[in-house]
């Protein structure tokens, strides 16, 4: 059967990338940490080092080593900006430099607070449609605060505030350890600032503020006209948000440094989730290859040309990085589109157990579908576009040609019953003519006398 033949090729394609990575994906562990006093965050930084991140700790005054990009190459894979007393991050970390670094593939985790909200970082985030409140702005909630003072700047957050998708924050282990991996429990959010989000479709909100909170300019409190100094209020304010670029680099911003500080066990798992997401330790998908087959000639992998109305088999493999190794990615919403200007097909793919068994690679899930090419010639694209918030965008597009039926591929005339009438009439004329010629030649007529009569 044709099945085993393409399975073999699919298996080979699948095996081309093997296991054996360090914990950060692809060994991408070079991390620059911009911080004034690393000791405040030592627990957090240690946890990173345990996960094989190579940390370079600098403060903003340290001119050397802050170049994120060197001749078009990334100096660091990841960047962590923790709150700093300095007003700006310096020329090496300007908004432009950050965007260039981000576009080239560097991940950024930015942490701000009410006291520290560097302009370059704000400007950069604003480009991503995450509008962080400026330095000195603070979020307060007078109705639902965890602190005893009048400032009310410690927010009590519950799992209801977390609106990040599972791909980013999958579990928050509650304080009283009752439920395991559900999003439950409460944690405090202290002296932070907040942001409002634009409609950029790539932005992923992580944590939203309680509806009774608001952000205002805390430095000019004497001015009673608070409303005039509002940055954003209610649940339109977000306390943490992220963005995954089209090239799959990730940016996260968290509005309070308290969550990262030593002893902040309450929120540790949320921060842990966000960090892992940002530095590509989780929710990373890849396709190790897609292939398509003309079922009339199943031995050819990825043929360039198809005939109209042939049966087509399409396979795509998906793997997920779980922090240690690639594992099969299981989903029920992977779709294939067969497009020429518009999709002619949009099919949901299903796991193909036979192909997976034949691929002999435990790290991939193979999705497949089978369909009949449309009766329309042209250049079609097999397109799988798996874009779910938080997950790596997987896109696989392969252009193939669907050709018309060649001149010798039509059914022969005698195979069509309708044509028998015409075949018979043509045949009878031929036979009749032959009979006539024979008759003419071998019977009486001789042009002896009347040959001049033709005029």
């Amino acid at each position, binding site marked *: 059967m044709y099945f085993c033949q393409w399975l073999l090729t699919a298996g080979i394609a699948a095996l081309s990338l093997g296991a054996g990575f360090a914990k950060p994906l692809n060994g991408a562990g070079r991390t620059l940490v911009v911080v004034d006093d690393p000791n405040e965050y030592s627990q957090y930084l240690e946890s990173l080092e345990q996960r094989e991140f190579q940390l370079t700790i600098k403060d903003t005054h340290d001119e050397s080593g802050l170049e994120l990009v060197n001749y078009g190459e990334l100096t660091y894979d990841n960047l962590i900006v923790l709150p700093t007393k300095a007003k700006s991050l310096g020329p090496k970390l300007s908004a432009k430099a950050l965007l260039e670094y981000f576009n080239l593939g560097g991940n950024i985790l930015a942490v701000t607070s009410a006291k520290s909200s560097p302009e370059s970082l704000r400007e950069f985030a*604003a*480009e991503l449609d995450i509008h962080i409140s400026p330095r000195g702005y603070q979020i307060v909630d007078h109705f639902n605060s965890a602190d005893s003072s009048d400032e009310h700047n410690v927010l009590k957050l519950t799992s209801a505030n977390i609106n990040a998708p599972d791909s980013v924050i999958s579990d928050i282990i509650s304080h009283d350890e009752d439920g395991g991996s559900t999003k439950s429990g409460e944690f405090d959010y202290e002296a932070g600032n907040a942001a409002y989000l634009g409609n950029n479709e*790539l932005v992923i909100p992580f944590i939203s503020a309680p509806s009774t909170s608001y952000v205002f300019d805390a430095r000019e409190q004497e001015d009673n006209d608070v409303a005039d100094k509002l940055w954003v209020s209610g649940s*339109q304010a977000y306390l943490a948000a992220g*963005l995954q*670029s089209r090239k799959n680099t990730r940016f996260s911003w968290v509005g309070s440094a308290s969550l990262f500080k030593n002893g902040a066990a309450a929120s540790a798992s949320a921060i842990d989730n966000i960090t892992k997401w940002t530095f590509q330790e989780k929710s990373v998908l890849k396709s190790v290859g897609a292939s398509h087959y003309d079922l009339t000639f199943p031995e050819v992998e990825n043929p360039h040309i198809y005939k109209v109305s042939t049966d087509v088999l399409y396979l795509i493999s998906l793997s997920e990085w779980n922090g240690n190794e690639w594992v099969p990615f299981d989903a029920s919403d992977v779709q294939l589109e067969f497009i020429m*200007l518009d999709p002619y097909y949009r099919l949901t793919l299903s796991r193909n157990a036979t192909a997976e068994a034949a691929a002999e690679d435990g790290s991939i899930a193979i999705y497949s579908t089978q369909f009949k090419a449309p009766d329309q010639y042209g250049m079609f694209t097999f397109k799988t576009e798996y874009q779910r918030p938080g997950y790596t965008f997987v896109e696989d597009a392969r252009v193939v040609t669907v*050709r018309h039926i060649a001149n010798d591929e039509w059914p022969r005339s005698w195979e069509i019953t309708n044509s028998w009438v015409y075949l018979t009439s043509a045949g009878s004329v031929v036979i009749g003519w032959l009979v006539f010629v024979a008759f003419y030649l071998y019977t009486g007529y001789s042009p002896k006398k009347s040959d001049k009569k*033709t005029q």
Partner: protein
Amino acid sequence: MALVTGFQKSDRQLIDNALLLLKVSTLILVAGAAISSRLFSVIRFESIIHEFDPWFNYRATKYLTENGFYKFLNWFDDRTWYPLGRVTGGTLYPGLMVTSNVIHTVLRWFSLPIDIRNICVMLAPAFSGLTAYVTYLFTTEMKNETAGLLAAIFMGIAPGYISRSVAGSYDNEAIAITLLMVTFYFWIKALKLGSALWGGLTALSYFYMVAAWGGYVFITNMIPLHVFVLLLMGRYHSRIYVAYSSWYAIGTLASMQIPFVGFLPIRSSDHMSALGVFGLLQLVAFSDWIRSQVPSKQFKNLIIVAVLSILAISFAGLIGLTSAGVIAPWTGRFYSLWDTNYAKIHIPIIASVSEHQPTAWPSFFFDNFMLIWLFPVGVYLCLRELADEHVFIIVYGVLASYFAGVMVRLMLTLTPIVCVAAGIAVSSLLDVYAEFAIVESDEAVESTVNKGGDVLEEIDVTSSGTSTPGVSSEEGSIFKTLLSSNNTIKPLLAKAVVLISFTSYLFLFVKHCTWVTSNAYSSPSVVLASNLPDGSQFLIDDFREAYYWLRMNTPEDAKIMSWWDYGYQIGGMADRTTLVDNNTWNNTHIATVGKAMSSSEEVAYPILRQHDVDYILVIFGGVIGFSGDDINKFLWMVRIAEGIWPEEVKERDFFTASNQYRVDHEATPTMRESMMYKMSYYRFTDAFGGRDGHDRVRGQNIPASMAPELTTIEEAFTSENWIVRIYKVKDLDNVGRDFPKAIKFDKGQTSKKKRSQTELRL
């Protein structure tokens, strides 16, 4: 020839041989002149394929030589009309490519490995030599060999034909004109002899013609029309029946073997006249036979009535079938032949082609020089003679003159008949005035006087075979009348004057042809030549520069969008996938490109994304003064786009309030926002040091203050003289911004402190 009679038999033999030698060497020289005058372009420039369509033919020929005939026949071209593709093998006339390929194969078999490109370049001149020879044969059938030789030399160097057959002009017409003349020659032969063999040959060459050029429809209608006119003149004869029936039956069946033609011969109105005449001929033959069998006069009348009513019924049937949709109605191209404004109103895509414009009167003279006034003379002489074949010349002449007046490119079909008629006219003149023997010796004069009539008789019989019995042999022939009047006058001076003036005309004709060929028709149009102020030649090679850039710097599967004119060249020279090309089979797709070009960037960008466009190529002549650029063609893009999206693209918006087409500070906002305008004038003023730029084609100033800015595309390449400009379509922004915002940020124009006005996420 008159001399021949007075000599001994052996002398006569000698003279016959000498005449043969003279004839052959003349024909060889004519062919040589025809070929060599077409080589200007190769000598001036290089062995290169010209213009637009030839680039496709060349590419197709290469495909054929590389992949063989069957693959060629079923060729699905995925490098053009992205993403629709084109069933190229089924939508082209393969005759030209197959011809080149056969020549290529034969030469290779002889171990002459000539590059296929050189065969393609030299094919048209080679066939023009053949055309000259066939014209000789054809005209010889009409009058005599003198006329034939004259027609051959006219045909060899007439600019009207050279315009489509210089070296490098590798187009269907290159071989089609030869085939046209071959078919007509065979037809005349078949008609004269009433031979099914010649009729079959006519059908074969007709088949070759069908395989080579869409203009075969001209033959399809020309021959039936000839027969129809003969029938109306009451000249029905079994010869006509045999010739026509054998041509029509075999030729139609053969033509249906070409995939592109298929069932057209029985389904389209263009071919109905041939079918109708075929049927009519059967009826006429039948009634003719009945008439010869039945004596009664009343019965004959009955037959005539019956024939007429059958005709009327079949005509009504034709109309019925057409309205029922079984027979395809006349195509737009056909209507535009009768109403020159038809295309402009209904099918802008046809009207937008420059060679579909009505012909300007001077171009008749330009393309045919003195032949154009000899042409009526030749037709008149044929009218006086009026044998069956002369009717052909008259019908052809009338039809082709009309068509040549309607469409520039149909000048090509007029040229052969002009040459033939002029050949007849000049030879008649020479017959009369170049009779020197008569003057030299009285004896010879006597003999000519006596023999004059006979000799002419002889010539007439040999040349035109069977002259029509209906025409009186005494007074019918204009040639004879001229000659006999000649006998009485013939003063030497008159002859000298006529001959000298005509020799100088002929001399001027050759000079004119050479001048026209070298100046007007030998430019490859891929490379442009101009003169510097000091008189030296300056070559503008921007097209090849840009196509080569595309070839070397873009991914192999890059999709290039350009206006359809450049599709074939991009495919041929740059080897990149195009959206539309000169095979304008899908009007909507062309309109899509027109819409992308004529709308703003925001509207165009989704179109570009949907069609996977990587690069956009525009032609801009404002710097160097190249008038055939895209801004001048722009209105056609707008019109064609408007035809499909009348709500979104409006031609009126591109004209100023005073109804002017402006590109300067008065240009309308729609104009300035359009992709085409922006791409043409992007950074144009930079070339003038930031001052207002001067567009040398339109003679207008582009204000520096209104310099267009691009957001969704970026400049990738501009050729030396700015003729070709290539833009790269940007990817979506990595972080999801819209393009203006991203550009603002790159330029550092974002406001920092303020809370920006953003639509909030809900």
